[in-house]
């Protein structure tokens, strides 16, 4: 378990380094300002990954990670102002770019399968993704308007 934790931590650190560079180049946040926030995010992730392994209930790590993040940044949680201030230095787009960079590198493997899909499948797929997106947006719009939030 201990070895697992160290390895998760180190892999997340490697990923975080790319994100910090992107955060610097793209969003003008110098690394020294971004490091505390990145460490907080890495710690949250590691705790979530450990909980997934330790707790005998079938909840994926991202479930724990989201909840821990919410909990420690709620205003009445002790020290939450530091969590919020530090992590606000990490631009969310700077985290998304390395994810998609690694995804692009990895997805080449699926290219052979993809090129076998016929044009009819691709048209249906486009409507599947379009349908779920616009369907959710329309329902959200109706309810948010009824509630007077937007």
């Amino acid at each position, binding site marked *: 378990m201990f070895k*697992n934790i160290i*390895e998760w931590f180190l892999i*997340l650190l490697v990923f975080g380094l790319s*994100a910090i560079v*992107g955060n610097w*180049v793209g969003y003008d946040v110098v690394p020294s300002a971004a490091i505390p926030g990145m460490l*907080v995010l890495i710690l*949250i*992730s590691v705790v*979530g990954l450990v909980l997934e392994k330790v707790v005998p209930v079938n909840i994926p*790590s*991202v479930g724990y*990670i*989201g909840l821990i*993040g*919410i*909990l420690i*940044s709620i205003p009445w949680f002790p020290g*939450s102002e530091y*969590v*919020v201030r530090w992590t606000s230095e990490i631009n*969310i*787009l700077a985290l*998304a770019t*390395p*994810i*998609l*960079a*690694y*995804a*692009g*590198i*990895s997805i*080449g*493997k*699926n290219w052979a399968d*993809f090129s076998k*899909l016929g044009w009819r499948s*691709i*048209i*249906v*797929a*486009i*409507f*599947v*993704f379009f*349908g779920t*997106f*616009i*369907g*959710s*947006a329309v*329902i*959200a*719009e109706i*309810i*948010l308007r009824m*509630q007077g*939030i*937007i």
Partner: protein
Amino acid sequence: MKNEKTEILKDWRLHVIALILVGITEAVGQFSFKVGSGVILLLPMLYAFFMGLGLYFSPLVKEKQAKNAEPLIILGVTLLIAKIGVTIGPQIEALIAAGPALLLQELGNLGTIFFALPIAVLLGFKRESIGMTHSVAREPNVGLIMNKFGFDSPEGRGVMAIYIFGTVFGAVFLGLISGFLATITPLHPLSFAMASGVGSGSMMAAASGSLIGLFPELESQIVAFAGASNLISLSTGLYVSIFIGLPLTEKLYSIMMRRKEKKAAGAGKGGDMNV
């Protein structure tokens, strides 16, 4: 298992390539152009994706790098979810206020059935169309279809087709249409933020990323709504599919096929229209 992780860590070639891709694409920055009254936004993450994909076909990236990249996507997404968590915390009250919309827009994912099922049937798909259109075909739904119909069933082939499309182009596609739809339709960006949470971290990041790029003043609200919606999709999506999505798709499919058969019979010669 343990050796694998060390090996991933030591794959410096992979990490250097990723670091360079991030550096270049973030330095280039975002571009936007108008299509009619809508805006298509190109974000660094989109260039990074396509450059990474291109590199796969170059000698720089070998099978090993492609395989080692996978756990980094998964762990990268955990950081993204942690960031979303700490963005939601300070806004928890706004989020609770928007709770009804957040929960009910999950049902909007059934929109895929109404939009895509008629198209699939029209294009001549048979029972494949059930697997294709009952959901956006992320891992839990692939599992559901395989479980119910088997891997080599028409439904199984259908769900795999959408799964493969989504894996390769889902994030890119949602990233492009979310900004465009938010600028061309009268719907509010926050409604699209909720719609961004389809149950996949990278798709949500791309879709909500475009919204942030276009409406930076709403950034933390967009992140909070998209992230919360994604967490709800992850935790309830499968059950919505089991109890509503899949039965509804099967029902509509049989109604459509009956109508199609009637039409074919009415036209005199039927049965060979899909050959």
